[in-house]
């Protein structure tokens, strides 16, 4: 008796697999380091590379990557590029690296990556690979101490619209698509093999503060913010140009409609006159008349992309400004206290000098003995103790405590 639960092979093969939505991109530490190395070496030029990995359920694993050489605009180099890719994939397969392309990575300058080329590359990849992702790395932002890595994918509704190349207002309202829906950002998880995590734990430097802390706590970040704001201003100019295009289009459209109405009225009046005279009425439409030709509606794709870029810049300014703000306010309170401490120390030094002078000039026996004692200690290895004798370092400790409390406030 056949088991009712078992399905025949044919049945299983016939059911289509439902693709689970992509929820997380899992990157290996190796890939991150390679991407950083490649992008940083060629910064400020923008570079790209290929990602290799595995597509497992709702997780896209990226396990290796290789960089693309900088392409010249030359026809024969095109074939070279394809050869390079095939060669690299073949070689990597021999050492058991996952041979499966899952996307590509590119570097960007201050987050200005939303271009039509990106969308076209996505469409190209999407034809061959079911799920692909693009990783964007920003080396200039990473210099401020944040790991600026993003995984992007085009949303499905946008892809359908793009295939039909139809970006009119009607269609967009139909699908309820706005500029936010073009790119979907996917959260990134980082994974490392046990071996490499053991190595890193061993080889980690003993310093309690690392380079990224130095980068984050730097106060001279004006150049970065300035460039961000400059790019923002340029984008706003572009956006206002796009808006003017729309205004122009709408104005033309309404003018055309008015013309059409006027013409139709005239025709109707003519027809009435003809009917009265007993002649055939003329048609109410005249496709050869230029005022009936509909003007093409400008595509909204560019304005959407520009809006995306502006939103990106704003987010960067916000995030960066907020952290800078907190660093600055912390620094100002601590520096104020530091001023007091250093002023205090100079005062203490003056006091000590004065006391030493009086002791030196005191020629009585007890005075000389005290002077001898103090000078021994000063010349010996007890300078900290000497200052402690005058209880100024105790006050220094108290000041430090205050300044620590000022930090937590």
């Amino acid at each position, binding site marked *: 008796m056949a088991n009712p639960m078992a399905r025949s092979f044919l049945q299983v093969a016939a059911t289509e697999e439902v693709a689970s939505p992509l929820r997380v991109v899992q990157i290996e530490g190796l890939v991150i380091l390679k991407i950083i190395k490649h992008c940083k070496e060629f910064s400020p030029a923008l570079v790209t590379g290929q990602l290799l990995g595995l597509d497992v359920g709702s997780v896209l694993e990226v396990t290796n990557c290789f960089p693309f050489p900088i392409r010249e605009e030359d026809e024969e180099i095109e074939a070279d590029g394809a050869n390079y890719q095939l060669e690299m994939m073949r070689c990597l397969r021999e050492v058991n690296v996952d041979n499966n392309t899952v996307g590509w990575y590119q570097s960007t300058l201050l987050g200005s990556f939303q271009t039509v080329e990106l969308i076209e590359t996505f469409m190209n990849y999407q034809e061959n690979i079911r799920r692909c992702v693009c990783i964007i790395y920003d080396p200039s932002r990473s210099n401020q101490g944040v790991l600026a890595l993003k995984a992007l994918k085009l949303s499905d509704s946008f892809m359908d619209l793009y295939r039909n190349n139809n970006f009119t207002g009607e269609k967009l309202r139909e699908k309820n698509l706005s500029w936010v829906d073009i790119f979907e950002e996917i959260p990134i998880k980082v994974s490392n093999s046990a071996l490499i995590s053991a*190595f890193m734990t061993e080889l980690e430097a003993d310093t309690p503060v690392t380079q990224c802390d130095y980068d984050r706590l730097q106060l001279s970040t004006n150049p970065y913010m300035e460039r961000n704001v400059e790019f923002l201003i340029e984008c706003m100019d572009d956006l206002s140009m796009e808006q003017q295009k729309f205004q122009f289009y709408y104005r033309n459209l309404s003018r055309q409609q008015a013309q059409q109405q006027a013409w139709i009225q005239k025709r109707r009046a003519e027809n009435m006159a003809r009917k009265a005279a007993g002649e055939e009425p003329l048609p109410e439409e005249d496709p050869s008349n230029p005022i009936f030709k509909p003007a093409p509606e400008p595509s909204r794709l560019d304005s959407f992309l520009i809006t995306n870029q502006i939103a990106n810049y704003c987010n960067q300014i916000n995030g960066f400004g907020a952290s800078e703000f907190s660093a600055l306010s912390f620094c100002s309170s601590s520096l104020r206290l530091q001023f007091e401490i250093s002023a205090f120390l100079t005062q203490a030094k003056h006091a000590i000098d004065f006391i030493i002078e009086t002791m030196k000039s005191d020629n009585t026996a007890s005075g000389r003995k005290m002077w001898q004692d103090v000078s021994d200690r000063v010349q010996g290895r007890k300078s900290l103790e000497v200052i402690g004798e005058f209880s100024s370092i105790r006050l220094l400790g108290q000041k430090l405590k205050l300044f*620590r409390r000022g930090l937590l406030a």
Partner: protein
Amino acid sequence: MVAIEQTVLQFHPSSASLSAKVHPVVIFNICDCYVRRPDQAERVIGTLLGSISPDGTVDIRNSFAVPHNESSDQVALDIDYHHNMLLSHQKVNPKEVIVGWYSTGFGVSAGSALFHEFYSREVSNPVHLTVDTGFNNGEATVKAFVSVNLSLGDRQIAAQFQEIPLDLRMIEAGRVGFDILKTTMVDKLPNDLEGMEASMERLLALIDDVSKYVDDVVERRVAPDNSIGRFISDTIASVPKISPPAFDKLVNDSLQDHLLLLYLSSITRTQLSLAEKLNTAAQIL
């Protein structure tokens, strides 16, 4: 009477100060190749790429694995593969040249001498890097060697692997953040504010350490050290001497600029949503 010939074993020491620097990408690459090695192989061999600076320091920046075969009596290396990969890598970065080779495993084995000979035909004085993935000493050992020729009189007898100082520069890894690279799974990359919070906590810990030390010295729990005391006072005195009102003005100006930028970016975002509504909501009646 036979003249006494020179029977002292001589070796020519390597050029003055040869040292090596290794970037963390290389270590990651080697470990990854080791994890993915074919079943019958005990170790992984590969080529090291990088650059040699004029003062003799070798900067190792990249690497790739090369398939090889090793049995008790012979060793074989896939030379074509090595050349192909080298050409591909040089298309991307022509400045990276071969500087040596690596193998996993502790110390140098007999087959290594032959590999080293092959690589010394590619580049003069190659560096041999061993990465101990087996943790033989209970710790991670990464060592670099160069080969030095031992000669007796005029005849060359053997080559000796001499260790050279190795600098594992973890600056790039530190930039990424050791927390991300140390654990086997990180769920979320930290954003600006979280990163700033972590850095401030570390700074706070440092300040705590210093003030604890000063307290201990004053309470005579710890012997005072002159150099540390001077270092502390130097640090505190390194703040530039500005009068308090000028400093206040400086800080306030900076704070105001930042607030202005935050305000501008919020206003821009509002403007964006307005513009979008205007663009798509307009209908032709």
